[in-house]
């Protein structure tokens, strides 16, 4: 019998702010953080809106130990957000790490503390790169490679490359919190968070760690990453005068593309017996985890099979491994990106697994509120699911008016008896992930 694994701390970081409290409040109140982009001038892109975390709500220099403040200069935006999410998760779980008190005994011995943070393709800052390239231009506006090689490249800071390696998210977090156990960086677009949390669970089950900082973070709110999403045809076209907060409508027949959010976050995944020994109160138990690959007709996974087969396989394995039946599932958190062909595959998968019951299991959608956080999306989903189990409450849903055969339409939040929540995600590329989260009954 393998070790039971629970979630003891939530550190989502979203456009609503840092930590579970602002996210959950917005979810319950049915608010969206999507607004016109102010990080760069979005004129020239088909989509001009996103869910951005403002500087008033988050300053990375305030969440790192004083001794680490200098290192924030070599952090890209994704790393900053990962560091912020990790600080929130560690605090929420009541863990003492090196960052909390460098002189105290850590709650989890450093070699037993792991770290799995999903990441995306981190885009280099165009201003930083262009400023350097500009120094090596020819008269005709091309780059003079001879000049670049002999001196132009010296206009790039020596650590430039290290800023943008996807594993720098986990690297900074492991240094700050002294996680010396297994650490990984999984890069599978929207499935990255789920695969990372699943790997933490397996690492703990096989005894290689007692707890992990786990999740995923991404910010595609920059011109280069935004351009790639536009090229991939995933963004909703905006600019026809409608409210930015109403554009994302997952599973609606009028869904027409996703909107990028920045963030994701970190959760603390911990062995149940370790949590019990330190008298921590878990939010939820990770009952199962499954990963599959969909068949992608276009090979590269912008399209996935419309019958939802690969996604359904992941859900079915997750149900089996959790020793639950389809009838035990009280709510479902899909990716719900509002990209029509992806919604279609997710919808088909739910119907394939749950049959006639599909129409009556409430979905929880997060993308209309916090945007699609890409590699971070699954952490937002897991954090909301864990909080719903703890609060015994279904958050509100917004925007979706006509859902085809699913309980996905707009509605207010309500109290609900929740014992099992299914969280699943597809991804650009065809990797799928599914979990069953179970309610943890308090002994007291």
């Amino acid at each position, binding site marked *: 019998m393998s070790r039971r694994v629970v979630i003891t701390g939530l550190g989502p970081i979203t456009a609503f702010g840092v930590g579970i409290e602002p996210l959950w409040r917005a979810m319950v109140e049915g608010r969206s953080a999507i607004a016109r982009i102010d990080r760069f001038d979005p004129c020239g892109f088909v989509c001009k809106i996103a869910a951005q975390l403002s500087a008033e709500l988050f300053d990375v220099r305030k969440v790192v130990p004083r001794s680490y403040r200098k290192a924030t200069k070599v952090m890209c935006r994704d790393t900053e957000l990962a560091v912020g999410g990790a600080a929130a998760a560690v605090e929420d779980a009541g863990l003492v790490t090196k960052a909390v008190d460098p002189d105290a005994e850590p709650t989890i011995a450093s070699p037993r503390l792991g770290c799995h943070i999903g990441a995306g393709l981190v885009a280099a800052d165009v201003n930083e790169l262009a400023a350097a390239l500009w120094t090596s231009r020819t008269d005709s506006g091309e780059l003079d490679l001879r000049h670049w090689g002999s001196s132009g*490249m010296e206009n790039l800071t020596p650590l430039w490359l290290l800023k943008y390696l996807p594993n720098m998210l986990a690297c900074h977090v492991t240094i700050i919190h002294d996680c010396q156990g297994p650490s990984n960086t999984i890069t599978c677009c929207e499935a990255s968070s789920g695969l990372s949390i699943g790997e933490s669970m397996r690492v703990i089950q096989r005894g290689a760690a007692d707890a992990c900082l786990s999740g995923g973070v991404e910010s595609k709110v920059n011109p280069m990453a935004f351009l790639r999403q536009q*090229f991939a045809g995933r963004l909703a076209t905006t600019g026809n005068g409608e409210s930015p907060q109403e554009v994302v409508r997952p599973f609606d027949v009028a869904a027409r593309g996703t909107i990028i959010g920045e963030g994701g976050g970190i959760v603390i995944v911990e062995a149940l017996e370790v949590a019990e020994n330190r008298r921590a109160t878990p939010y939820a138990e990770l009952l199962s985890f499954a990963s599959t690959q969909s068949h992608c007709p276009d090979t590269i996974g912008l399209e996935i099979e419309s019958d939802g087969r690969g996604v359904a396989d992941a859900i079915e394995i997750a149900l089996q491994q959790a020793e639950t039946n389809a009838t035990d599932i009280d709510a479902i958190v899909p990716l719900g990106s509002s990209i029509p062909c992806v919604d279609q595959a997710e919808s088909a998968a739910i119907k394939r697994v749950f049959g006639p019951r599909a129409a009556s299991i409430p979905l929880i959608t997060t993308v209309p509120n916090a945007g699609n956080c890409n590699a971070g999306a699954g952490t937002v989903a897991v954090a909301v699911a864990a909080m719903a189990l703890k609060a015994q409450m279904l958050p509100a849903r917004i925007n979706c008016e006509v859902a085809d055969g699913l309980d996905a339409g707009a509605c207010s939040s309500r109290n609900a008896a929740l014992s099992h929540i299914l969280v699943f995600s597809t991804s650009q590329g065809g990797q*799928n992930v599914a979990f069953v989260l179970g309610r943890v009954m308090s002994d007291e």
Partner: protein
Amino acid sequence: MSTQTSPPRVVITGMGWITPLGHDLQSVWSNLINGQSGVTQIERFDAATFPTSFAAQVRDYDFREYLRDPALHKHAAVNTQFALGAARQAWDQACLGAAPGLDGRRVGIYLGAGEGVLDFDAYARVDIASWDPEQDAIDTPRWAQAAGELMDPWREIGQEPNMPVSHLAREFGIRGPAYNCLTACAASTQAIGEACDILRRGDADVMVSGGTHTMIHVLGVTGFIRLTALSKGTDDITRVSRPFDRRRSGFVMGEGSGIVILETLDHALARDATPIAEIIGYGSTADAFRITDMHPDGRGPAAAVIEALNQAGIDPRATDDDGRPPIHYISAHGTGTQENDAVETLAIKRVFGDNAPKIPISSTKSMMGHLIAAAGAVELIACVLAIQHQMLPPTINLREPDPELDLDYVPNKARRAKVDVCLSDSFGFGGQNDTLIVRRYEA
């Protein structure tokens, strides 16, 4: 107090690689044993004025020869092209194409693949065209317009690091657990280790694993030069990748892919496949020290090795009746930077004690360069070939021993040896350390 039955054994049933020293198992192995260097001047772009203008490149390679329907992969980036060729070799060696009733849902994939390659020429034109010197910033609307006109959408989409996974899944009908990890230079070792765990816990019967990467492009080479990680030598470029030598001054970039087919032993035997070797240990740790430096005590690498040895049930200080250590060869990370080779040597001494000088260690990076995310997979394959051929690949260019580095690095000439158990180390920028132990297959 465990009453569990022992977990399933995991074996390798197929291997393939696309490397700077060739495109098939035998020719690359011959070149390694002959101490051949794959380093040449960079041909991908005009690097003439770059402080480092050479690398070990994959040459004369056409991935379409390995595919039944190349049109399915028309958008494959260079790293994906490498992986498709390597995977085809491994898949065929494992005879999986002929496996009756193979259920795609029980076949998974876990790669440690790097990102694809930016269309740098177009990108630079876009940046220069939209730079506003008065604002000291990009004019973003102009940038977006120029990018829309000049950049190839497919090349941009194809840079996501999960793209090789998606292409391989399509080519081989894979529907099981699917992952890509990107822990810099440790990625493919970590991918193989985690793929073994997926098999051991029963979530799949077969895993396609390994890595693929190229950073031999303008920004990749620039990035490593700025980090002062690359060897600079100007004399004979085939001699400047010199791990463990006193004059070592950095690594030489390589590129390519290594793919292995991993399988539970029961599954392999049930379909009459031939196990080539068994993976018996995996360890993974983080340095948690600095983003640029390894911990000077080698604590992270040593801990990863110890974890792998524990999993394999091997006492590093034990000897057999002939006084032989329990590990017969270490494929070092051995990048040829001052720091790596010193810390790695220290870690080996810390773990193996009196056994350390008796264990031959070599770095194939001296010949193939550093394949970055793909390095670990290629080096694991070299370990398996060492077991098959009872021969150790050398560390070439080791002409001036470093007095501080006093272990047996198999200098310059391949060596015949009795080899049954090998250990392969990979360390990534940012502090990820991963170790695999592979053993000759015995029933």
